């Protein structure tokens, strides 16, 4: 599966469009990471636990999107976009969407 965030896959031709595919996941922070982060909040700097958490969650959303595209018979997704929204206090939704296509 080839992904890109432009309207084409450079070096290849799009032969068929399958429509929009999407994948999302909602994640909550865990207490351990929350305590570590609130201590880190005193001195500032990177909150590594959260960086990893969001990274994993986004991979999951991409994976779900890819699975949906595969089930349609696509071999690439173009114009992939991301969106993050906070659903509730301490929980965030990570959403990825794009257009599933067949490329040659």
């Amino acid at each position, binding site marked *: 599966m080839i*992904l*890109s*965030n432009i309207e084409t896959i450079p*070096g290849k031709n799009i032969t068929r469009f399958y429509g929009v595919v999407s994948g999302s996941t909602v994640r909550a*922070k865990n207490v351990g990471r929350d305590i570590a982060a609130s201590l880190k909040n005193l001195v*500032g700097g990177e909150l590594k636990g959260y*960086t990893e958490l969001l990274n994993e969650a986004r991979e999951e959303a991409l994976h779900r999107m890819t699975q949906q595209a595969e089930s349609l018979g696509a071999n690439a997704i173009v114009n992939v976009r991301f969106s993050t929204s906070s659903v509730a206090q301490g929980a*965030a939704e990570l959403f990825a969407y794009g257009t599933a296509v067949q490329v040659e």
Partner: protein
Amino acid sequence: MEDAMGIAVLQVGIPLALLLLGYFVGGAVERRHYASIQERELRWRSLPAVNFRTVPGGWIVDDATLVLGNVVISVDYFKRFLAGLRMLFGGRVKVYESLMDRARREALVRLKVETVERGYHALVNVRMETSQLASGRGGSGVAGIEVLAYGTALKLRTPPT
């Protein structure tokens, strides 16, 4: 009487200690982060990263893939306190400006590192997205901001030197 004194000392002392900790340690953390960002920006300077939506003419592309770089970063206790004061009077909140700047540049550098590590040569359509992590307990101010940088990495037939 002594108890009341003790409590008053604690009530003033703890925030004061946190302010000092934030000022000295937080300041050092920020300076070190900026030094590290500048060093890595220089190292990856030759990697073309553009936000055009199309591949610049003359580039022959062999392979393309989506790459991501993200970072979650927060301000220290002292800066949050200063920003709180600033909210009373309005105007430019310098401490958050540097926070956003550091986060964006860090995310972009990570995007470039990811591109190079996976064996790609250039980036097109670089986009950035910022989101705020809700602070627990409905607490004061920002718990942290996340910046995500993403783009399409290209493998070129004749890599730029």
